[in-house]
């Protein structure tokens, strides 16, 4: 219930920003606040926003599973890099999607499960475990590509970076994939037994354990899921870059993903939140990135404004449902 309230809580912010940028972009071009000529709310630009949001959305969805159990996964960026790397390397020899795509996903899943095992079996703090793999996995990504950019201009699955024309205008497959991921995750969380157990573990681990829920399994699942989706994001990034660089690819992505989740009203203490909220959070971040450029705001100010908006959004939300959430 409350989580829904919060979801709704962020929607206005999103709409507000969109309208704002429509005006600002108009101002940037014509010097007048003429809504009509704005470049933001156009069939040309909105797909761009959707595409910008897509990869972060996928990462943030995986992150949502983790944070719902009260954990955190800092390693998503590195896992993204390593699986992009892996699939590109394999594509070098056997360039068939039936091979490369599963490889990318499995690599992601694998590292996710390693995180999960360390956390659920050895009961290590998620922050430190995933901080460790953030570093180690990045090293592996560089090692695999022996520290150069791996490139493949005719990647078999590069097609997913192309557009499909829909009544709403051309939309990138990446955006479609992101939507599908969100939908599937929503279903898992809300309509399956596993979903209830994830919320239960997040809400009160002791109670979950006493009622015989396999807490270790739930944890393994969520970190595996986060890894898997990071792998998927890696494939998406590989498709649109047609290349991967172990050192640079995906650095700092974890912060954007977490920001999206929290903006979406998911609680850090676990047990409260929804992927729909996460989707909106990811969109807010993408709208900022794209809108500020259309508005011709300089790079420096983009930093400042982005930071302030993140804080402002949560403050607004907090003021709206006072006493409510314990994000």
């Amino acid at each position, binding site marked *: 219930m409350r989580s829904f309230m919060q979801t709704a809580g962020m929607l206005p912010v999103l709409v507000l920003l969109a309208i704002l940028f429509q005006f600002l972009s108009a101002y940037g071009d014509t010097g007048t606040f003429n809504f009509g000529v704005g470049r933001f709310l156009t069939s040309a630009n909105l797909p761009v926003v959707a595409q910008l949001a897509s990869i972060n959305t996928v990462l943030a969805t995986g992150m949502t599973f983790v944070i719902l159990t009260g954990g955190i996964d800092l390693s998503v960026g590195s896992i993204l890099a390593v699986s992009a790397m892996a699939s590109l390397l394999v594509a070098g020899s056997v360039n068939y999607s039936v091979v490369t795509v599963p490889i990318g996903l499995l690599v992601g899943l694998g590292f996710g499960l390693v995180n999960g095992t360390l956390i659920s079996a050895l009961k290590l703090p998620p922050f430190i475990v995933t901080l460790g793999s953030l570093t180690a996995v990045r090293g592996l990504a560089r090692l695999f590509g022996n520290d150069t950019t791996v490139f493949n201009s005719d990647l078999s699955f590069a097609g997913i970076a192309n557009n499909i024309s829909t009544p709403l205008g051309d939309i990138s497959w990446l955006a479609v994939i992101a939507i599908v991921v969100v939908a599937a995750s929503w279903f898992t969380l809300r309509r399956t*037994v596993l979903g209830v157990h994830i919320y239960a573990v997040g809400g009160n681990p002791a109670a979950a*354990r006493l009622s015989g*829920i396999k807490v270790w399994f739930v944890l393994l699942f969520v970190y595996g899921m986060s890894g898997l989706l990071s792998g998927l994001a890696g494939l998406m990034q590989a498709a649109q870059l047609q290349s991967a660089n172990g050192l640079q690819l995906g650095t700092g992505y974890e912060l954007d993903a977490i920001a999206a989740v929290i903006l979406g009203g998911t609680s850090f203490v676990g*047990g409260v939140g929804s992927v729909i909220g996460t989707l909106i959070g990811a969109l807010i971040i993408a709208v900022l990135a794209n809108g500020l450029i259309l508005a011709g705001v300089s790079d420096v100010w983009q930093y400042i404004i982005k930071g302030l908006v993140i804080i402002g959004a949560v403050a607004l939300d907090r003021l709206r449902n006072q006493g409510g959430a314990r994000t």
Partner: protein
Amino acid sequence: MRNISKTFPGVKALSNVNLTIYPGEVHALMGENGAGKSTLMKTLSGAYQADPGGEIRIAGRPMKASGPIEAREAGVSIIYQELALAPNLTVAENIYLNREPRRGGFIDRAAMVAGSEGVLQRLGATFTPRTLVGSLSIAEQQMVEICRAVHAESKILVMDEPTTALSSRESEKLFAIVRQLRREGLAIIYISHRMAEVYELSDRVSVLRDGQYVGTILRSEMTPEVVVKMMVGRDLSSFYKKQTRFRPDKPPVLEVRNIGDGRRVRDVSFDLHPGEVLGLAGLVGAGRTEMARMLFGADPRTTGEIRIAGRPVQIRSPQDAIDVGLVYLTEDRKAEGVLLDMSAKDNINLMICSKDARAGVLDLGKAMQRCRDAIAAMKIRVAGPEITVGSLSGGNQQKCLLSRLLETRPMVLILDEPTRGVDIGAKSEIYRIIDDLAKGGAAVLVISSELAEVVGVSDRVIVMREGHLEGEVRDDDINQEAIIALATAAARTVASEEVDRSSAGGFDLGDQAAAGEVAVGHNPGASRPTRH
């Protein structure tokens, strides 16, 4: 259960305990705080693994790989002492937790809601299956626990202090259900600190002491003296009762004039005199805690004024209250009282250390001294000042908390459920402490849901109902009937019949009133959803 032992790092909670339960009996399990009752039950329910050597047979079949699920399949269901609910899930989801009905792999919410509605009605709960557990009051949450256990329809039903948060009427419903289940041939293990409840329900009583099995007696052999002796191992001077009620001579030290927040509490006014113990009674949810928290500045108050020693005072935050010599003992020890990870020393000195300090630097010597003195004065059973409070039993945690307040030498003390979840031994010690405080000239306001307690310790009793002050009883009129009458003015009939039965109970012990009790505090383990 045959010679069950359980060792925690540092503690041997159980050693070679034997227990035999027959179908169709209610078997009470008693013992002081930390005796091992809950632990024993947790080994039965598969929450803990018993140390090797012990054996648990259910219907003759030994239970091997014991985990919560195996236990449940073997037909054991349990109500845990510390609430085991997920506050972020709905009532239905909690009742069906890990037993969710599925349709084609997916969760079948409709079935869950329908199923839970049944039990809820059967136990006469007032809330719907779709409400979030976190938004329920502690009492209501306790009901959810009971519903879950009953709903599991098992062979053995364990109840670990189920009534600690229930009002008498809710308890009555529970007892009815227990009896019915007994008729249906279930074996029921019933843990409680309340003699009267045990007497009313149980066929046999087993007693644990310091993790040892002491013995089992039949209902017929059961007198309070016997049971208490088995529990404490020594004769306990029977329950503390004021000989003479103190008549205040000096002017009031605390004057409260129609304070309230317009919602839960409406213009409450009363005086409190030095050396006086004022009892505050009322049903669960009467607004006593709210009122107390307002006095203390912990919750916002919209109306009224407070005078201390004749002088009006502005109390906007707890530290304001402490500065003017007014302190408050919370009713929810674990959630907002003790600091479990900190040492007894730090806990006891938490309030006073800023006064002792020179230029903000702690006076360690003095702190140590205060701690040792407190341990001695309050008979706190703790290995040393540096032991973390988390490892102490409920009673001793409560004493640490109490001494934290006393170190500030307050003029006025508000004690909210001072003996909640505390065993008989510790109880009578706390009563004595309260009496000494009053004799020492302090003014004490005791909020309690145990009538006998109110009657026993108070010089004067005021009663709240639905957020306002219903009335006052003093001197010889102070008896349970009078108080119940005030507290339940709305429902006299119920009250009176309760009273009759309670007099039938025939115990002269602290829990004598249990049956006729107005309301029962919730247990220390459960933290109420914070509304502050």
